[in-house]
């Protein structure tokens, strides 16, 4: 390959043409630059070990969740995100791993987690938001609970996000967790997007050579290129549901049991090619057994 560099100097407007080879040799003799590995010689990273997601259909789609990587699950409220996450946590804790859930909105229902099969004794639950609860109480008092102060609400979520990031850093540094879940499912998208991309790169770097799976639950994807697997979860459409329900007053079973969840694989940086881009599976109510 014949490569040339074209340089121009202020003194001489006429371009100077050098052959690249002598210049590269010269650069190579600089000690610092000599240590730089060319991209062509970079070590190929081995394929990560996969952990079962706890849902057979999802395992068929993604192959599970990759260890040492960031995975994202996003979807709207009532789409089944929490159920998917709890299934993964149940699988990991039952196999003896210690997991952590950083709960930004303090929304975990331990009874639901236990019903999903999560071994609560092996799940470290971090409930963010203590410092902001009192602030919120004051806010409610002065407004008599009638309207929301947008600025205060935004600040409240910012404080929670700060806690989430600090806690996640600590958990990643302490090593030994099989799975760490960041539950940002209730954080407004506008606030969630304020998490700097540098934080996601830091998280990805921290777990790169560890057996930890970092799962992020959110309403919209926020980790950008740092996530290795991006799954969109959606529930049944209203029109589809209405046709299955008996009249205007469905039974509890009809409303909550066997709700169909669709998982769509939007991005996978892994070499494995999925047989299809989306799968559907039914969720069960916690009392359904």
């Amino acid at each position, binding site marked *: 390959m014949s490569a040339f560099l074209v340089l121009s100097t202020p003194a001489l407007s006429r371009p100077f043409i050098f052959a690249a080879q002598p210049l590269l040799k010269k650069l190579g003799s600089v000690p610092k630059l000599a240590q730089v590995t060319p991209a062509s010689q970079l070590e190929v990273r081995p394929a990560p070990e996969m952990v079962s997601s706890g*849902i*057979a259909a999802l395992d068929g789609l993604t192959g599970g969740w990759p260890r040492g990587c960031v995975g994202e699950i996003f979807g*709207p*409220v*009532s789409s*089944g*995100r929490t*159920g998917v996450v*709890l299934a993964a946590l149940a*699988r990991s804790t*039952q*196999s*003896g*791993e*210690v997991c952590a859930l950083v709960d930004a*909105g303090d*929304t*975990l*229902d*331990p*009874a*639901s987690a236990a*019903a*999903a*099969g999560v071994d*609560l004794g*092996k*799940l*470290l*639950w*971090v409930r*963010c938001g*203590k*410092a902001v609860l009192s602030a919120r109480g004051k806010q409610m008092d002065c407004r008599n609970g009638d309207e929301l102060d947008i600025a205060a609400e935004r600040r409240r979520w910012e404080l929670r996000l700060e806690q989430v990031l600090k*806690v996640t850093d*600590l*958990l990643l540094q*302490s*090593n*030994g967790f*099989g799975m760490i879940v960041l539950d940002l*499912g209730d954080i407004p998208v506008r606030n969630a997007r304020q998490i700097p991309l540098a934080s996601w790169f830091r998280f990805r770097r921290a777990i790169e050579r560890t*057996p930890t799976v970092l799962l992020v639950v959110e309403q919209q994807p926020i980790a950008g290129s740092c996530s290795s697997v991006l799954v969109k979860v*959606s529930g*049944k459409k*209203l029109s589809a*549901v209405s046709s299955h329900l008996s009249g205007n*007053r469905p*039974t*509890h079973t*009809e*409303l*909550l*049991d066997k*709700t169909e*969840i669709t998982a769509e694989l939007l991005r996978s940086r892994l070499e494995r090619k999925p047989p299809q881009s989306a799968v559907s599976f039914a*969720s*069960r*109510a*916690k009392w359904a057994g």
Partner: protein
Amino acid sequence: MFACIYIPDFPAEAIIRFDPELRTRCVAVLAGRPPLEKVIALNDKARQSGVEIGATRAQLEAWGELVLRTRSQAQEDSAHAALLDCAQSFSPEIEDTAENTALLNLAGLEPLFGPVSKIARDLAHRISKMELEANVAVASNPDAALLAARGFSGVTLIAEGHEAERLGDLPVDVLLESFASDAQEAARWLETLDRWGIRKLRALASLPEVPLSERLGQQGIRLQKLARGAITRNLRSFEPPLVFAECVQLEDPIVLLEPLAFLLNRMLEQVCVRLGARALAAQELRLQLELEPCAQGRKFDVPAADDQHGHVRFTRTLRLPVPMLDVKMFLKLLQLDLQAHPPGAPIVKIYISAEPARPRATQSGLFLPPFPEPEKLELTLARIAGIVGEGRVGSAELLDTHRAGAFEVRRFAPAQPETKSATRKKNGGVPKDDNTRQVEENPQATMSAVLALRVFRPPLRAVLTMREGKPVRLRCLQREDIAGEIVWTAGPWRSSGDWSEQEGWSREEWDIAMPAEDGFVLYRVVQDKLQGKWFVEGTYD
């Protein structure tokens, strides 16, 4: 063979032990009722600079370089305990001879620790790690070892049969200080021997026995035998209690946590050295701070009690998940705990004690799942608690009640994974617990998602419009986005409980669906029957 550890200038050493920087300065220790305090102990530097035992505070106050400290019984007790721990770490048979002296029986220790000379050097090294400067002597009988340790500085070895020759150089004062029943008797003996012109033990040892017996009686003969190093006796065995505590009485009260951390570090170092010497670790750390009488109206948010002097005792206890022996870890944990629960008044006395336990011995398996190191995890949990608040990090435990959402957050202490052989041994041939067996034998058994509830804490106030006994419209007072027509409902489910308690409850639950942009949202709405108010408790997700 017997060894003796002797700490000269013990009251001064006990004080210098917690402030090693004083070792390079002149230190005098005072005791007595103010203002008539007198010097009772000195370090070598102070002695060389001309300070004498018995000098008063008034005489010494103009002495610029001299550091004057008040005698501390608590610190002397700690130093004495450290001395015994050091002796016990080498030999099971020790004698608690005096607060500054311990004797050890070295019989049978050579195969374990090497030759006697090495044991003596190791003893000196270990006691110096406890920040105490001591003399160590080894001899064929306890009293000869005791005399040598009191008379010669550093490490002294006396071969069997050479006791009289080596001890002969010592002044008679050493013998009388060691073996006279009290100071008056020692002074009387010294005066007699001085009149005879006997100043060294060699002279006393060479006196003819019969005339000596005629003049001084049996006590004289005993002293002569001691001077020759010829009395053999058994040790009065003593087993020191397993109490690992350090105490510092402060000259000036401490207000800030930073200077407190320096002192805590030194004390923890000493506790850990002592525990290490006995091959033990700490299972629990207890910090007790004595505070100056607090200001009126001051309230402690942690256990505190007044003592008889009006001082307030502030106690914090750290229960460790596994036995540990790491000074840095202990210090960091205490710092985080004190940051979360500051004492709130100047500190005048610090007391740290450790509950001893056998150190953790683990065999990690190649195929065991990843598990955080308990020591590191404890520190991480303490740091996280500092960020999100205490009681907001841990593992959830469901309570045995019908009350909805009843749970407790417990301290996070997951059981360590065990190797297959260990599990099999423990279960008597049944290798796995139910969950693991279920997962491994039937991987499809739990392979589905559960529709989980996401709880709003606290529940959101709402207004629910009912028509013909069922909800038709919901408006949340705290969130504008939760409002609209209800398209489906399921319910009601009524429950109540704890009628006999003050905190009785009665509720009516509805599961409702409301249309949303991407489909529908399922909510759980609850009416508190006692208050008559409606709340949105959470969403199904």
